């Protein structure tokens, strides 16, 4: 503890909200999450203020008409055992299909933030998670979740204050998983992956907490929802007809042979094989074009195998894949958990026919000593893995992609005549080998 310094300054003895004057209209603006909130929208004139600094800056002088959300900014309500104050409100819409919903940012200085989301008559209370969620479909915290949807959420209206730089036009890619009454939500932008855990609430519970009128929380009768339903009816019927056609088209194989296994072999290796190249016999892929899947399986348990696979074909055409098989299981205070899988696959969309062979460089955790238990390691520990090559894998992925492309379009065109912006590409994970395992 060298270089210790005496305090030059101390925080005031009581924490308090901050009240400032809007630089645009002079109206009074309360910053409830003082020191945490970054932006605040003036309730008088709608201008967006940067409140992250002692000097308040005007980000956007809009002078737009603000509309008060059904639960007003500043209202307090007792929910799930904590008194919350509404600090912010935003409306968001799916950038592809225009579906919109409302989100209240709730704040308590001792408990942090929650998101109260209203989608028509469904209410969900979310809390941000600070733990990795490898795959909710494989199970998380003892529940198996079903993916409910993915999309691009675009902010269309903001009011109040936020702990991020909230702007109309913000976009994040989203995925939602449900195992009622629990939900998991994943949002990603450039530098952050945010998982949230949600629980469905009865409209009545929310209504009682915040003193709302019953016709509001019961949903379905709000003007917004009713008019949206009326206007979209025609488009939806076109969509339903298109889905039925797509389904029929997808189910007819058109004479293509399906799921032909063209190569399969189990490899027995030891530490001596690490990083060396295993070359397989030549196998033939039919001339008919189409996709091809390489599946790697290994009976790993609290361990990993990574294969550098090159599939080399006619004219040295090469397809590269680096399947990583890892499976971990353990117990902690929350019960048992597992992550990963003993099988992983890589699919190439279009592989020409011809004679191919595989060059495989194996890497495995079991090739090396565990730094925590070096004496238990035996250099001749066998590491087995199986590589299978399958031609013409039925791709429901394509079906869902086609469905996603087909359905939102008429709806979207109906709401937004302009072309939607391209979604931001997700950052591809950096090859993890440098990071595992530390010696």
């Amino acid at each position: 503890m060298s270089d210790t310094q005496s305090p030059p300054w101390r925080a005031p003895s009581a924490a308090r909200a901050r009240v400032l004057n809007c630089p645009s209209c002079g109206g009074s603006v309360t910053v409830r999450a003082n020191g945490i909130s970054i932006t605040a929208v003036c309730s008088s004139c709608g201008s967006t203020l940067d409140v992250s600094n002692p000097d308040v800056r005007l980000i956007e002088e809009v002078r737009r008409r603000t509309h008060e959300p059904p639960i007003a900014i500043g209202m307090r309500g007792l929910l799930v055992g904590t008194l919350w104050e509404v600090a912010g409100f935003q409306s968001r819409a799916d950038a592809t299909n225009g579906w919109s919903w409302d989100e209240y940012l709730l704040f308590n200085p001792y408990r942090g933030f929650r998101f109260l989301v209203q989608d028509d008559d469904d209410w969900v209370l979310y809390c941000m998670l600070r733990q990795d969620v490898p795959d909710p479909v494989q199970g998380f915290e003892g529940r198996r979740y079903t993916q409910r949807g993915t999309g691009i959420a675009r902010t269309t209206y903001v009011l109040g204050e936020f702990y991020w730089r909230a702007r109309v036009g913000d976009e994040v890619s989203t995925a939602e998983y449900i195992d009622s009454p629990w939900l998991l939500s994943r949002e990603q932008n450039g530098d952050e992956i945010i998982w949230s855990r949600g629980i469905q609430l009865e409209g009545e519970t929310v209504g009682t907490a915040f003193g709302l009128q019953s016709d509001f929380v019961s949903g379905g009768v709000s003007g917004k929802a009713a008019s949206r339903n009326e206007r979209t009816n025609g488009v939806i019927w076109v969509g339903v007809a298109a889905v039925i056609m797509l389904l029929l088209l997808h189910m007819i194989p058109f004479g293509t042979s399906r799921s032909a296994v063209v190569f399969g072999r189990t490899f027995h290796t030891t530490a001596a094989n690490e990083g060396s190249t295993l070359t397989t016999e030549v196998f033939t892929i039919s001339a008919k074009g189409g996709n091809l899947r390489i599946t790697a399986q290994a009976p790993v348990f609290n361990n990993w195998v990574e294969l550098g696979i090159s599939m080399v074909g006619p004219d040295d055409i090469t397809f590269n894949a680096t399947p990583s098989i890892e499976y971990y299981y353990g117990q902690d205070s929350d019960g048992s958990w597992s992550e990963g899988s003993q099988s992983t696959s890589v699919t190439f969309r279009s592989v020409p026919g011809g004679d191919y062979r595989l060059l495989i460089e194996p890497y495995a955790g079991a090739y090396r000593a565990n730094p925590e238990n070096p004496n238990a390691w035996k250099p001749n520990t066998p590491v087995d893995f199986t590589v299978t090559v399958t031609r013409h894998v039925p791709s429901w992925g394509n079906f869902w992609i086609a469905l996603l492309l087909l359905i939102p379009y008429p709806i979207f065109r109906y709401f937004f005549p302009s072309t939607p912006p391209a979604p931001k590409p997700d950052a591809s994970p950096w090859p993890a080998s440098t990071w595992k395992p530390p010696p």
Partner: protein
Amino acid sequence: MVVRSDVSVAAIGTMASLPDDISPLRIGTGLVVDDRAYVVLGRIRMYWADGAWNEWFIDDGTTPGWLVEAQGFFSVAFPLPLPPVLVDAPWPVLGATLDLGGTIYRVSDLKEATCRGSEGELPFAAPSGRVVRYADLNSPAGGFVSLEDSDEGRRFSSGANVHGDDLGFSNLRPVEGWVEPPRRARSDGDPEFPPGS
């Protein structure tokens, strides 16, 4: 910047006055980590492009560490030697994983932040304007690992994301207009806690 008359001239330039916030923590707040009684000795306030957080320096007399407070969430972290493979490793990208003794940590947050003030006792000088690059990693069980890079080199720390309820805070700062809430029952259904807890 607001120049305060009670700030000693010597401190200006090395320590900034601390913009106030609504945090109920303060120097002198007590907390319990792994059954050990800690006291908050100092804090650093970090800002990134879109937000801010507090790093509270905590000590129990033997094992000093940090209580990170961001958006009302808490993480406890203790400094560790930098793993040799990370000395020259390229900076990770979002989603990269790190195997630490069999536990897989995933990079969930990459940020560059600037110190905009500090108070109290700290284990190193934290001048205003000090820029730190962070890579934060989480494990499925809520384990927390942080890799930091600044002019002084890389720092590595490990700990856990924790619930404020579990830290047994004492001597908190009063918050105007709010009452310190009672400890919750996990059965209240707050999604901060996992199902069935």
